[in-house]
C-alpha cells in the first residue's frame, strides 16, 4: 500500500477528534479577530482620539477575558488531538505485535529481533507526532487563514489580496522542497534500523568480541556507521529546514508588504489607523499556522519513513497454517505420535524432511538421533504445529494434527527447546511461565528433580534472583536444569518433547535426569532428540535420521548390533 494512503487510513480513527479540533480552531480564530479588533480600538481611541482610559474599560475588559479564553481553546485542541493519537499509537503497536507474532515461531526466528523492536517502539513513536501535531496543524492551516481573511477583506481589501495571493504559494513551495527530503528521510530511517540492529548484535556478543580482541574495532566501525547516520539526518534536516526557511521568508515578505502598504496609506490619509492596526495585528496570525506547519514538516517525513517499515511488517507474508477443522480436542491420555511420509522445507528453501515416517508409541521413550542438519529439530517443530508438512501427515493418536485445536494440544505438551529463552524476571517467574499458578510444593518437586536446587542454593536470592538474558551468569548446564525444571512443572503434560535435554550436563546429572524421564515414561509419550547416545540407550525405540528421512529405526539393543548408521554413531562417540 502507498505510504501516504496508509497514514491516511490510520488517521481515520482521528476523524472525530479532528472535527472537534477544527471547531476549537475556528473559535480560536474568531477570538484572535476579536482581540485584534479590540486592541486596535483601544489604541486608536487612546492615542489618536485622546479618549480617556476610563471610557475604554469595556474593550479592555474584553481583552482581559479573551486572553484566557484563547489559551483554554488552544490547550483543549492540543489535548484532544494528543490523547486521540496516543490511543492510535497504542492500538497500532498492539496490531503490529499481533502481526509479528502471527509470523509464528519459525517466521520470527528468521527476523532480527533488534530490528523488530525498533519498528514496534521507535517506529510507532515516530508516527505519533504526525497524528498529534501535524494533522491538527493541517486543519489549523486550512481554517485560520480563511477565517482571518473573511475579516481582513472588509477592513482593507488591498492587504487581503496580498495575503490571499501569497498564501497558496507557501504549500506549493513546501511540497516541491519536501519531495526530495522525503526520499532522504527514508534512507535515514533504514540506516537507523540497521544501526539499531548492529548495536543489539554487538551487545549480544561483547564477550566473544573481547576474546577475539575485536571489541574496540567494532566500536570504531559503529562510530563511522553513526557518522553516516548523522550525514543522512543532516541531509534530511537541511531540506526540511529549507522548506521552513522558504515559508518564513514568504511570510515575512508578505507581512512587510502589508505593513508598507498600510504605512503609506496612513501617511496619505487613505486609511483609518484602526483598520490599519487591525490588519497589521492579524497579518502575522494569518501566516502563523502555515509557518507552524512548515516547522512540523519533518514530523511528516519521519512518519512517512517509519510507516514504510511498519507497512513492510504488516505486509510480511504470514505462513498460513490451515487448520481444516481445528476444533478437535486432543486425545486424553498419552497419545502415539505418527509421522507418515512427511515432506517439509523451510521458507528460505532449506529442505528439512524428505519422506519421513516413524511412530513414537504412547508411553515409553522414543529417541531421535542423527547428524545435525538432519531434520531432528524440525520434527519437534512439526509436532508442535509451528509449521505444517508440505505433504504427508503428522498424527496424534488417530487424529491429524491439522484438525486439532492447537492451544488444547499445547496444554498436553512439556517442551524443552534447543535454546531455551530466559524471560525477564526471577527464577520463579521463569518457572511459573510454563505453569502459572503452580503450587510451591510442585515447584519444589520440579526444582529437586531437575537438579536445579543445587543452582538455586548458590544464587544470592534463591528462587527470587532476577535473571539476566543469559541467566545471571548461569552456566550452560545450570540453564539446562532451569529448562528441565520448567518442563517438569507442566505436570498435566502427557507428551514430553525434549530437544537436547541433557546438553551441558555432566554424567551424574544427566543420569539423574534420565531417571526422571524413565519414571515419567510409564504414563507419557516421550519424544527425545539426543546427541548423546546415553539417552538413546534407555529408550524403547530409536529413530536414526539423516538427510531428512529415517535411515534406521528399532530398539537400541538391536540397532547396536546391526551394522548400520546407529552403530557408526556409537563408534564415533566411543572414539
Amino acid at each position, binding site marked *: 500500500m502507498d505510504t501516504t494512503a496508509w497514514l491516511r487510513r490510520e488517521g481515520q480513527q482521528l476523524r472525530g477528534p479532528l472535527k472537534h479540533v477544527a471547531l476549537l480552531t475556528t473559535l480560536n480564530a474568531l477570538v484572535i479577530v476579536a*482581540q485584534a479588533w479590540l486592541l486596535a480600538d*483601544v*489604541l486608536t481611541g*487612546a492615542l*489618536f482620539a485622546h479618549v480617556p482610559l476610563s471610557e475604554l474599560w469595556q474593550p479592555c475588559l474584553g481583552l482581559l477575558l*479573551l*486572553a*484566557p479564553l484563547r*489559551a483554554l481553546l488552544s*490547550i483543549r485542541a492540543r*489535548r484532544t488531538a494528543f490523547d486521540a493519537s*496516543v*490511543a492510535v499509537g*497504542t492500538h497500532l503497536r*498492539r496490531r503490529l*505485535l499481533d502481526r509479528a507474532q502471527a509470523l*509464528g*515461531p519459525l517466521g*520470527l526466528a528468521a527476523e532480527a*529481533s533488534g530490528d523488530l*523492536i525498533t519498528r514496534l*517502539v521507535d517506529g510507532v513513536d515516530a508516527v505519533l507526532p504526525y497524528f498529534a501535531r501535524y494533522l491538527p496543524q493541517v486543519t489549523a492551516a486550512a481554517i485560520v487563514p480563511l477565517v482571518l481573511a473573511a475579516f481582513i477583506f472588509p477592513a482593507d481589501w488591498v492587504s487581503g489580496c496580498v495575503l490571499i495571493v501569497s498564501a497558496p504559494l507557501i504549500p506549493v513551495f513546501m511540497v516541491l522542497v519536501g519531495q526530495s527530503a522525503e526520499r532522504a528521510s527514508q534512507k535515514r530511517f533504514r540506516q537507523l534500523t540497521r544501526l539499531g540492529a548492529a548495536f543489539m548484535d*554487538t551487545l*549480544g556478543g561483547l564477550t*566473544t568480541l*573481547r*576474546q*577475539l580482541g575485536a571489541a574496540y574495532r567494532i566500536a570504531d566501525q*559503529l562510530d563511522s556507521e553513526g557518522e553516516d547516520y548523522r550525514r543522512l*539526518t*543532516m541531509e534530511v534536516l537541511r531540506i526540511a*529546514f529549507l522548506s521552513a526557511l522558504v515559508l518564513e*521568508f514568504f511570510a515575512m515578505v508578505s507581512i512587510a508588504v502589508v505593513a508598507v502598504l498600510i*504605512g503609506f496609506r*496612513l501617511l*496619505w490619509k487613505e486609511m483609518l*489607523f484602526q483598520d490599519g492596526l487591525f490588519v497589521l495585528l492579524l497579518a502575522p496570525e494569518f501566516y502563523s499556522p502555515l509557518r507552524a506547519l512548515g516547522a512540523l514538516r519533518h514530523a511528516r517525513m519521519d512518519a512517512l519513513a517509519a510507516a514504510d517499515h511498519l507497512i513492510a511488517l504488516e505486509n510480511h507474508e504470514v505462513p498460513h497454517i490451515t487448520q481444516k477443522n481445528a476444533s478437535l480436542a486432543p486425545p486424553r491420555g498419552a497419545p502415539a505420535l505418527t509421522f507418515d511420509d512427511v515432506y517439509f522445507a523451510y521458507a528460505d528453501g532449506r529442505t528439512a524432511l524428505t519422506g519421513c515416517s516413524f511412530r513414537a508409541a504412547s508411553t515409553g521413550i522414543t529417541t531421535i*538421533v*542423527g*547428524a*545435525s*542438519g*538432519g531434520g531432528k529439530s524440525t520434527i519437534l517443530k512439526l509436532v508442535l504445529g*509451528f509449521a505444517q508438512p508440505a505433504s504427508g501427515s503428522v498424527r496424534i493418536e488417530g487424529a491429524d494434527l491439522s484438525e486439532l485445536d492447537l492451544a488444547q494440544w*499445547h496444554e498436553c505438551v512439556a517442551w524443552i527447546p534447543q535454546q531455551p*529463552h530466559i*524471560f525477564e524476571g526471577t527464577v520463579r517467574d521463569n518457572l511459573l*511461565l510454563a505453569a502459572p499458578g503452580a503450587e510451591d510444593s510442585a515447584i519444589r518437586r520440579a526444582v529437586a528433580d531437575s537438579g536445579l536446587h543445587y543452582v538455586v542454593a548458590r544464587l544470592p536470592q534463591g528462587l527470587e534472583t532476577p535473571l*539476566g538474558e543469559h541467566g545471571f551468569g548461569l*552456566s*550452560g548446564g*545450570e540453564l539446562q536444569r532451569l529448562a528441565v525444571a520448567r518442563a517438569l512443572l*507442566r505436570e498435566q503434560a502427557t507428551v514430553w518433547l525434549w530437544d537436547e535435554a541433557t*546438553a*551441558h*550436563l555432566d*554424567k*551424574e546429572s544427566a543420569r539423574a535426569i534420565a531417571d526422571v524421564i524413565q519414571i515419567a515414561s510409564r504414563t507419557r509419550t516421550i519424544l527425545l532428540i539426543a*546427541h548423546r547416545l546415553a539417552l538413546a540407550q534407555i529408550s524403547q525405540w530409536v529413530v536414526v535420521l539423516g538427510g531428512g528421512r529415517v535411515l534406521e529405526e528399532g530398539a537400541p539393543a538391536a540397532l547396536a548390533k546391526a551394522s548400520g548408521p546407529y552403530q557408526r554413531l556409537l563408534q564415533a562417540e566411543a*572414539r
Partner: protein
Amino acid sequence: MRETTKTLRQFWALMRPYRARMAGGAALALVAGLSAVGLMAVAGWFIAAMALAGTTGVPINYFSPAAAIRAFAILRTGGRYGERLVTHDATMRSLVRLRTWLLRRLIPLAPAQLSSMRSADLMARLRADIDALEHFYLAVMIPFGVAFIGLGLVFLISLAVLPLSACLIVLGAVVTGIVVPAWTRWRAAEDASQSVYDAAALRGLLLDALRGHAELTVWGGITSHNARIASLDARLAAQRMRLDRVQALGGGMVPLAAQWSVLGLLGLGLAIVHAGGLSPIWLVMLSLLVLATYELITPLPEALAQWQATVTAAQRVFDLADTPPAVLEPADSATLLMPPWVRYHNVRLRYREDGPWALDCVDFALAPGAHVAIVGAPGAGKSSLLGALQKFFPTEEGFVEFGGAPLAMVRGDDLRQHMAVIAQYSTLFNRSLLDNLLLAAPDADAGRIHKAIQLAQLEEFVRALPQGYHTILGEAGGLVSGGEARRIVIAQTLLKDAPVLILDEPTEGLDAQTADDLLVALETAARGRTVILVTHRLAGLARLVDEVIVMEGGRLRDRMPVSVYMERSGQI
C-alpha cells in the same frame, strides 16, 4: 540514584569537543531571536510613526526604519536556518559519539558485570536514553540562554523608554520564564522519570514476546504476556497524556501572560501618554516589543516538563558507564615470555563477597605446549578457571601467571591476544561470513582465510552458501546450524595466531558424528599450541589432550595422564 548536578557536570565534560559548535549554534539562535524582537518593535514604531505623520502632517524619514525592518527580516530567517542546522549538527555529532563512548565503557564490563543485565535494557540506555540527552542542549540551554539575554536587552530598552514598563516586563518574565517552568518541572517530574523506565521495560517485554514466542505459544502464555505489554503500554500512554497536559498548560500560560502584560502596559502607558510624558509611537513600539519578547519565553515551560525525563535518562547512562570493571587494568603491560607458561598460584575466586568459593586454593602449572582437559560436575569451577585466566574475573587471593607475569601486570586485551577461545557461548554476528572470520584476524589475506576454511572443513558449506563468503549469517549467526557455527568459530581460532587454545565444551550440542568430524579440525587447531579443554564428556575428545585435571567444589582434586583417567572412569 546519583545527583543531578554531578550528572550534568559529567555530561558537560563529555561535550568538550562540541562546545565550539554548540556555542556557534547558540550565537545564531541569539541573532535570530533578537532579530525577531527587533523586527516587531521597529515595525510597531514604523506604522505608529507613519500614522502620526499622516494625522499631523509632519514629514517622516521612512527609509531607515524600512531598511532596519529588511535587515532584521533577513537576519531572522537566515539566522533561524543557520541556528537549526548548526545546533542539530552539533547534537547529532555529540550523540553519535556518546553512544559509542558508552559502548566502549561497556566493553570492559563484559562478561562479569553485564551478565546480570538484560540486553533490551542495555539497548534502551544506548539508544533512547542517549537520544533523550539532546534535550539538554536543544530544549534547555539554547532557549533559556536566548530568553535571558533577550530579556536583558528588552529590559534595558524599556528602562530607557518607560521605566515602569521595565518592571512589568521583569514581573511577567519571572512568572512565565521561571515560575511556570519550575511548576511544569515539578508537576511532570514523576511521570517524566517513570516513563523513561517504563519505555525501557516495554522494550524488554517486547523482546521476550518475540524471542520467547515459541515457548509462550506452547505454554499458552501469549495472551497473558500480551496483556502485560498492553497494560504497560497503557500506563505509558497515560503518563504521556498527563505530561502533554502539563506541557500544554505551561505552554498556554505564556501567550496569556503576554496578552495580559500588553494590557497592563497600555493601562500604565496610556495614562502617561495622555499626561504628555510619552509619545504614542513609543507606546505602540513597547507593546509589540513585549509581545515579541514572550515569543522567546514560549518554549521554556514545555522544555522543563521534560527535564526530569532527561535527567533520568542521563543518570541511567552514567550509572551504567561508571560501573567499575570487575578487573583492574595496569597502565602498561609487562613483557610476556612466549611460548607462555600458565601458572595458578593458590588462586581463590568467588562471584560475591559472601558467596562460596568458585575456585579454592587452586595451584598448578601448565608448560608451553601442554594439552590438558579439565573435567568436573557443573559448579566444580571449570569455567571459573577459564574466567580467571582470561582476566574476566578477578582473583581474590593468589594470582594467575601467564608468560612469566602476574595477570595484574598485563592488560586484558594484550593478554587475550595470546589466547584463541572456542566457548560455549561464542557468538557469530549478523554480518557476512567473511566479516565474521576477519573479526579474529583483520589483516588476514584470502589465502589464509581459505586455508582456515579448509582446515575447519567448511569448504562444502561455503560452496553451498548463496553468496559464498559474503552471505550474511543472521542475528547471532541464527541462519547456520550448530555444527556449522562451531566450525566457523574454529576457523576463527585457526586464523588467530595465538599460542594458547581454550576450548570450553567445543562439541556440546552436536551429535556424535558431527562432533567426531570436528575433532579433526580441532586437532589441526591444537597443533603446536597449549590446549586447555573444559568438558563434561571426555570420550571423543581424549585424543586432543595428554593430561586430565579433575575439579570438584572449586578445588583441584586430581591430575593424571589421560590414559589413567580413561581407565579409571571406565571402571566407574
